[in-house]
């Protein structure tokens, strides 16, 4: 069947597929935005224009799943070494030092 299709039909078919792909990107835009914001540091979450390329972080999730208090003193090297990886991610992010 495909062999007898005119070039115009093939072109229209291509155009429709491209349109579907564009629509998919538009529909997924909000989901990508909310998903990527979950991995952004606070300062990048509300930038104009929205940041698309960034260094993903786990700190938002660590903050969500752990109970946190304000640190009064900078973290000691021993405490840093003893901390689990998610705490290290927070320390590296600049909090508590």
């Amino acid at each position, binding site marked *: 069947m495909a062999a007898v299709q005119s070039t115009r039909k093939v072109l229209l078919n291509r155009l429709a597929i491209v349109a*579907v792909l564009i629509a998919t990107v538009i529909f*997924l835009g*909000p989901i990508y935005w909310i998903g990527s914001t979950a991995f952004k540091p606070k300062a990048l979450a509300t930038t104009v224009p929205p940041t698309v390329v960034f260094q993903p972080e786990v700190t938002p999730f660590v903050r969500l799943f752990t109970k946190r208090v304000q640190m009064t003193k900078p973290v000691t090297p021993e405490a840093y070494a003893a901390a689990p990886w998610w705490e290290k991610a927070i320390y590296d992010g600049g909090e508590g030092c």
Partner: protein
Amino acid sequence: MTRLDAGSRAVARGWSDLSIRNLFIIPTVAFLMVFNIFPLVYSLGFSFTNFAANQNTPWSFIGLQNYRDLLSDPRIWSNFIITAKYVIVSVAGQMIVGFGLALLLNRDFKFKGLVTTLLLLPMMMSPAVVGLFWQLLYSPNWGPINYVLGLGEFAWLSNPQTALYAVAITDIWMWAPFVMLLSLAGLSAVPKHLYEAAAIDRAGSWYTFTRITLPLVSPLLLIALIFRTMEAFKTFDIAFVMTTQPTTELVSIRLYKQAFQQWDTGKSCALAYIVLIVVVAITNIYVKYLNRVKER
């Protein structure tokens, strides 16, 4: 010849009617009675009283007074007008976007399944979550929507003129995939030989669309329309989460306020029944039309 007793014969046959009734039908009917029918009848009773759920004061039957008050209240009518506007905008948008996407998707290409699944993602999210993050997307100061459309600091949700449409756009984004799914099912059920016959007869593409595609898809399109109209009429979550504008006060939000902020339980039950009657009436009109379309 061996004769079995009634129980063994039932076991040999598989499920007996009696065990099906006891195991499946009686629990289901009991569940529906307790959780659907009972509250329905109970609230119908409350709609004729001046009962208030947060007070212990005695209450009395006041007949149709609640209904009379509600139907003569201009605020309720304005809520209904807002709801009608919302239903028309969002359902029309969903039908156009959803059916358009289905028409575009109704061809074979690589990753068709993947693209369809990705397009269905918005439908799978919780309405409260969608409302919350669209509120962020619409943010006037740093929202991505204003940036993409180049609108500067346009306030979507705090502007009484645009708030309702902003909520409708969110609803379209969320539920157009549902219409797309149903119309895609309808489109793929259209027999291919009809198109081949049309091509042999040198029918134009518009003629093929209006005479073959549309009539054969219309029953499923109408079902999508019924579902979406009913749901849009009852919309509460998205609109409630996104804005507090008086211009977005849909009937269900009015209902919520009446029931749980003013604690006017009897009156809110009456309003709930008015909404139910309206939805049933609209659905009946659609179903009548659907049956006519199916007969063709």
